[in-house]
């Protein structure tokens, strides 16, 4: 029995190793053929770098008002022009990226942290399935932006609360996907085999189920990142997110509405920033789906 167990473990580990190699190879091979994915990755790396080094690379203070240069058109001093207070649009975009990306990452991470365990529990333990999923269904009953607005109305407009609101609307999405993936995997022969070999539930989930459902979750997480950034911008645009004078892309568009007839660029550049970031995450999500999900051709 011991030898059977050992060889099974051995076979399992080399198989897992080869599979991982396969994924890496597929990613690399896919990237070589997909120019758009390269563009997306490059843009996101540059945007993340700019956000991290915002204080160093931004040409001006994001909140500094240059009274002599209100509504300045793009020139060498202010490459993207200035707003109604003479604040440099480029610097505000760079600092705003910090808010957008950090809100996006932290809310999606929080949603993964709660959503995946809930979905694993619901999918694996039959008794927990109904209670967990019915609660998740309640949250899925609201159109997401409306739920976010209701949460912001209750909690009050701060950046931290935006993260909480976006995390809450994403938890049921991850819980639901995880659950259905677990249901698809848990009856498979290798899970049965692991159970026969005497692995306990936690071991089976961690060693056999989770690694095999990771790909679709990575795809969803990537798409959720873009969506989270879009939601943050929407909330700030409605005046429920980041508050002035903190620079945020959505908030910049909100104030730009009042002046856009005279200075269109204040209404254009923040939108371009949101669009390119979300677009890049969506391209990346589609790319991961094509490469990691063998069902789609």
């Amino acid at each position, binding site marked *: 029995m011991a030898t059977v167990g050992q060889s099974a473990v051995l076979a399992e580990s080399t198989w897992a190793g080869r599979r991982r190699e396969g994924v890496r190879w597929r990613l690399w091979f896919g990237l070589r053929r997909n120019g758009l994915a390269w563009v997306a990755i490059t843009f996101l790396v540059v945007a993340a770098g700019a956000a991290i080094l915002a204080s160093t690379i931004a040409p001006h203070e994001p909140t500094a008002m240059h009274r002599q240069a209100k509504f300045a058109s793009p020139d060498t001093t202010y490459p993207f022009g200035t707003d109604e207070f003479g604040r440099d649009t480029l610097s505000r975009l760079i600092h705003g990226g910090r808010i957008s990306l950090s809100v996006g990452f932290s809310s999606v991470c929080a949603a993964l942290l709660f959503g995946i365990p809930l979905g694993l529990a619901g999918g694996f333990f039959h008794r927990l399935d109904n209670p967990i999923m*019915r609660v998740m269904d*309640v949250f899925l009953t*609201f*159109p997401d*932006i*409306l739920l976010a607005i209701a949460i912001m109305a*209750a909690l009050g407009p701060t950046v931290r609360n935006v993260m909480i609101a976006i995390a809450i609307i994403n938890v049921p999405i991850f819980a639901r996907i995880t659950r259905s993936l677990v249901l698809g995997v848990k009856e498979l022969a290798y899970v049965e085999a692991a159970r026969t070999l005497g692995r306990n539930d936690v071991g089976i989930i961690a060693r056999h189920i989770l690694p095999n459902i990771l790909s679709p979750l990575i795809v969803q997480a990537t798409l959720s990142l873009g969506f989270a950034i879009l939601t943050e911008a929407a909330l700030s645009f409605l005046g429920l997110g980041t508050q002035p004078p903190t620079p945020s892309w*959505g908030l910049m568009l909100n104030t730009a509405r009042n002046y856009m007839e005279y200075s269109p660029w204040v209404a254009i550049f923040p939108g371009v920033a949101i*669009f390119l970031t979300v677009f890049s995450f969506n391209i990346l999500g589609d790319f991961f789906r094509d490469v990691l999900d063998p069902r789609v051709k």
Partner: protein
Amino acid sequence: MLAYILRRLVLMIPVLFGVSTALFVLMRVVPGDVARTILGQNATPEAISALRHQMGLDKSIGAQYTDWLWGLVRGDLGQSLRSGYPVSTLIGQRFPATLELTVAAMVISLMTAIPLGILAAVKRGSWIDHLTAVIGLAGLSIPSFWLGTLLILFVALKLRWLPPFGYTPFFDDPLQSLRHLALPALTLGFSMTAVVMRMTRSSMVEVLGEEFVKTARAKGLIERRVLYGHALKNALIPVLTIIGLQTGFLFGGAVIIENLFAWPGIGRLTLDGVFQRDYPVVQGSVLFVAVLFVLINLVVDVLYSYLDPRIHYR
């Protein structure tokens, strides 16, 4: 079929119970004293206690909860703290504008998305397919409020083709009403166009690869019959789910669009409620949209059986 619809309606009850409970909890976690927040720091203690009494906040949390549920059963969503009108009356006044906007958005997006999706699937791998793929992805990524801002900026303010905002009821002046409707409906429908187009394409590609399509071609049917008579009807089944879901999201997205275009619908009502801290209005209008969302999905499920006779409901 009727039994199925009835059963689904009964099954809605626990979901709606959960939704109303969630909203009740949400509106009670408002930090601090709600009455003081509404009235401001300079309010007299008498005014605050009067408002607390009016809102029923002086009762125990259990009594507040049963009051809220009992009100819902009778169709009573409470009263606006600002205007004093029943919330249901306010919703009734605002709903036609929202319905007009969402229906127009849906019509625009379906009329563009389904033909483009079919075209992309039929011309799979061609430049049309790649172009629609990029447009689809861009449509998912463009913030609706930015698209709307750009349309206002260029179409309304620069070119002066259409009014930048405002609302005219359709029966007052149909032409003017449509002129007001065009930009917000286009903006709201754009992301739905992208989603439905992508779904139509992938579903159509899948169906076109199936045996019965080969059979239809093999027996010599003209391509148009194969596409529209055989493939499309089957391909539309998953598309329908997406349309149902997206219609629900249109009502959510309407909050943003109504705010941008000064459109007097439910979305504006909700957002004004948020800013005026008119909690019964927020609670009521969010609940209303959630119920609508559930009902739309029920309608979609029923339509399924029409499109796909293989599905039997018990």
